[in-house]
Each structure stands twice: as C-alpha cells, then as structure tokens.
C-alpha cells in the first residue's frame, strides 16, 4: 500500500503540491482527477521519485526517499504521458528495458528476462510486431508496448499518466480494460491520471480530486462525481447522469439548448 504524508512540491514560488495526504490500500485503483495544473502529474512523479518533495511517501512501509533508484524501480513502474519512443528500437528491445531494475549493473539480460518479455508481448497480442521498430507501429500498438514495458518491471505499483490520451474511444476502453484485468490478476496497485471523468469513474475504485495542489475530495466515484463537488473545480457546466445500469456519466451542460438551424436572410431583403 502507498501512504502519502503531507507531500509538498515546489517548482517555483507557488507550490505544485501543498500537503497532500492519502492512503492507498494495496490492490486499489486510485483515479486522480482535477483541473489543469492541479498537480496530478506532479503527484505521480513524486511517487516515482522523479521530483524532490517534502513529506514522505511510503510504499509497503518503506519511505521512498530512502530507497536507491534500483530498489524504487522494482516497486514502482511509471508510464509517462508522452513516453519517448526511439523509432529504431524494436518492440521486444523496448519491452526488455522494463527488466532494467532486475538486471545487475554490468550484467546483460538473462534468458528468464527474455522469456518474461516474450510472454508479455504475447499476452498483448504484440507477438507479430516484436521484431519491428517502434517507428512502424500504430498508436494502439505503441500504447500496448508501453504498457508491456511497465509490466515487465513486475512492480506492485503502477503509475499511469494519461495512458490513453492518443487513442480513440474504443481503444481507450480496451486499454483500460486490459489494465483492470492485469491488476486484478497480478494484484497491482494502480494510480492513474485520466482526464475523462466518466472513464475514471468507471474503472477506478476510488477517486482523488486535486485542485491547486491540495486534495479537494476523495472517495468512491459516487461521492466525488457529483455536480456540486465538480462545479467548484471544473466550472458550472458539468452534468452528472446516472444510467439505468448505475454507471455515472459526466457530460457537459450546454449554455443554449439544442435549437433548429436559423436560416440566413434572403439576399435583397
């Protein structure tokens, strides 16, 4: 499990995170939502040890600040919003990078490492593309490759920063379904930043609403995805609906109701 204890991050004079505290039980999917600049990415990066912070973040009781890079990488797998994908690297080489925390400093990959990666590629139906350079893969395939690399780390904590931003809705859902399935199978703790509030509510166990570097709301989707809660942070134009199946859909409430198209005046009048 992950414990954030009064985590603060300061890039410039204004803080990016100001005293965020939260407990994430093991195996939970926590969706982090909030307006732009709320500190969502910063929270993930601090959990990944990529940003200096005040306060402590503890994973399974071990403060991350005291861990060496390698040890932290074995606990936390981080997928950035815009991963850097060297176009000439093949998919299998890329996924193999995920084994870095488990390979000795000056050692090479072992057969076991290669088999783990091969298994993951297979699992994500990427086996035919394994030998192809990343530059030749489609957006959806790349998304899966990036996820495969993160899973190759075999870390109990998975940090996903907008993992579906470049995908169409169908693929977006498919990717999230995959993460869900894997996290249940491998007992992963997932922290994800997802802009789509509906999807966030559908897949996360709990939501954490950040605004201005502070926690504005936390709890199951039903308690966070309410118009009165969201209005204070996203503006008044949001509308939360509950479908017959009990799912929450967040949509926009337009200023003007739908109306017939107004015909332009005829010339000469």
């Amino acid at each position, binding site marked *: 499990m992950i414990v954030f204890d009064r985590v603060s991050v300061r890039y410039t004079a204004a803080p990016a995170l100001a005293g965020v505290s939260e407990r994430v039980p093991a195996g939970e999917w926590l969706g982090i939502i909030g307006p732009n600049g709320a500190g969502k990415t910063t929270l993930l990066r601090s959990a990944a040890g990529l940003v200096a912070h005040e306060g402590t973040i503890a994973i399974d009781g071990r403060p991350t600040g005291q861990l060496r890079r390698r040890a932290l990488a074995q606990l936390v*797998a981080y997928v950035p919003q815009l991963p850097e994908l060297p176009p000439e690297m093949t998919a299998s080489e890329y996924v193999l990078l995920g084994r870095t925390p488990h390979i000795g400093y000056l050692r090479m990959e072992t057969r076991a490492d290669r088999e783990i990666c091969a298994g993951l590629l*297979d699992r994500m139906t990427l*086996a035919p593309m394994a030998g192809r350079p990343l530059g030749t893969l489609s957006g959806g395939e790349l998304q899966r490759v990036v996820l495969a690399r993160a899973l190759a780390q075999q870390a109990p904590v998975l940090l996903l920063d907008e993992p579906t931003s470049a995908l169409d809705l169908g693929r977006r859902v498919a990717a999230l379904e995959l993460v869900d399935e894997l996290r249940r199978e491998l007992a992963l703790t997932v922290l994800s930043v997802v802009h789509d509030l509906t999807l966030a509510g559908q897949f996360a166990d709990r939501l954490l609403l950040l605004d201005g570097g502070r926690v504005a709301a936390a709890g199951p989707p039903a308690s966070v995805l309410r118009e009165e809660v969201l209005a204070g942070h996203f503006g008044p134009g949001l509308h939360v609906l509950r479908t017959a199946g009990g799912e929450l859909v967040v949509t926009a409430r337009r200023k003007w109701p739908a109306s017939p198209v107004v015909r332009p005046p005829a010339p000469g009048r």
Partner: protein
Amino acid sequence: MTPAVRRPAAGQAPSAGPPAAPRARTGRAIAIAVAVLIAALVTGILAGPAGLSLPTVTAALAVRLPWHPALSVPAVDTAIVWQIRLPRVVLGALVGAMLAGGGAAYQGVFRNPLADPYLLGVAAGGGLGATIVIIAGASPALLPPAAFLGAAAAVAITYVLGAGRRSGPGAGLVLSNTSASIVLAGVAVAALLTAVQTYLQQEHSQTLQAVYSWILGGLSQATWSDDALILPYVAVAGAVLLAHRRLLDVLRVGETEASSLGLDIPRLRLTVVLAATLGTAAAVSVSGLIGFVGIIVPHTVRLTVGPGYRALLPVSMIGGAAFLVLADVVARTAQAPAEVPIGVITALAGAPFFLFVLRSRRARQDLA
C-alpha cells in the same frame, strides 16, 4: 470491441519474436568490422616510403617470430617493419578505437549527436599542457604527461562547474538538465583554455611551429614505448565503456524514464566521462589532437548497424581503429616522404564518406 488480451493456451510456449536475431546481427557486424580492421592493418604495414615489397615485409615479420623458417631479410628492412611501421599502425589502431568509442559513449550519455570525445575540454586542456612544456623548453619526454594532466584537469573543472549541486527554486527538479549544463561548461572551459594557449603561443612565437605541429596531431613519432604507455589506459577505458553499453541503450528513452527504470544517471554519467576522459587524454598525449574520428565514425556506424549501443560501441571502436590506420596510410603516402597532417586526412576523407552513407540510406528509406 476487439478483446485486447488473448491468453495463451495452457502449455503452449510464448510465440513472441525471436530474441536472438539482434544478437546475431551484432555478431555479424563485429565480424565485418574486424575483417576491415585486419585489412587496414595489413595495408598499414605494407605502406611506406621505403618501398618494401610484400615478400620482404612478410619475411621481415616472420623473422622475428620464434618458429620462423630460415629467411634472409636485410636487417634494415626488418627494422623498418618492426621499429617504424608496426608501432605506428598499432598506435593508430589504439587511438582510433579510443576516439571513436569515446565519441559514441559521449553521444549516448549526453544524448547529443554532436558530442565528440573532446566535448568536455580534453583537447583544449591537452593542447595547453603541451604548449606550456614546449614554451618552457622542457624535455620532450614531458609532453605526454603534461598533455594528459592538462586534459584531465580541464574535464575535472568542466564537471565541477557543470554538475555542481544547485539550490534555489529549481532545486525541486531532481532531474534538472545536468547533461546540458555539463556540455555548456565544457564549451566554456575549452574556449577559455584555448584562449590562454593562443595567448601563450603568441607571446612565444618562436615556438609556434613546434606547438602547432603537436596540435595538428600525428602518428609519425610512434614508438613501442608510446604504445605501451597508452595501452593500459585505452584497454581499461574501452572495457569500462563496453561494459556500460546496455545502460546507454536504456538511456535512449530519456533521462526521466531511464531514472524511473532504476538507472542512476549521475553515476552512469560520471563513470562514462571518467573512462572516456582517461582514454582520450592518453591518446591525445601521444598523438596530439586528431579530430573528426570521434564524430564521423560513430555516426557512420550508426547508419549501418543502427543506434543501439550494444552494437554501436564495439563496432565503432573497431571501425575507428581501421579508419585511423587507413587515414594514416594516406597521410604518409599521399606526398611521400612529406607527411600530410592526419587531421586533414580525417576531415577530407571522413566527411564525404559520411555524406555518401547518409544519402544512400536515406534513398533506401524513401523507397521503403
């Protein structure tokens, strides 16, 4: 909706792509590079103003080996082959390997395609050290250590300036762009030391020719003791760099992601810089400043074996050795017995070849 996951049936082996293919490709590239190197070495031993024929050279080589048949070779010819040509060819191979390997490693660790082994001030520091010795009229035997110390000191200053700890508002970013800072510090240090050296040269202009001929670089005074002097440095530096090639590949996804994968970037950078600097400083101390090798060879090799450091580093080293040996052959035969400075040859020969490879590769990509 297409299910994105397909579990393999129980007992079925994963059918992912063959992981052995890249290793076979690397092995093949290395074999080709070694063949080229051997051809270059042979050419190097055969070329020279004394006009020795192939049978003579072969006999001269064989005569010194323990199991040689009875051969009669003029002692002068044997001496030319063993005391002049062989040490020179060996030095060319060592220096070329070090410069190319150092260049490739720097390009990897600084993620900068324009990085070369002189990036952090090795050239300027070595040149200044040599200039001081020449101006002071000290014994020429002091040139190599002075150049070595100058080169090492310059890099040390660069590293301290560029990688020093920062405090203040930016300190919130653990991974501030230290690589760029180090590169910039290197540029500044090199500029400063070069200016000091130029000033000293002007003040003592009667030594101008001696200083300039050292700086232009060359293998014309290669002796076995030079080879013995730099061999440990080049061997250790080369081994360290090769040992880190997997980590340089990890670094290809950027410093942030590589850090999240467990890479200790400052430590990797320091190790690579230390090894490359020691090896390059040693090379500079006996052969002067030979340019272009550290940039041209890794890029050319990259166009043929790809950007993966697993293949790039070893093939660059072997290719760099071959390149410099061949450049030296041209340098000493083009206007025999006068010698063209080898830096001129590396520039003249390297740049067009690189352009040629670039265009042929680009043409293939356009058709693909």
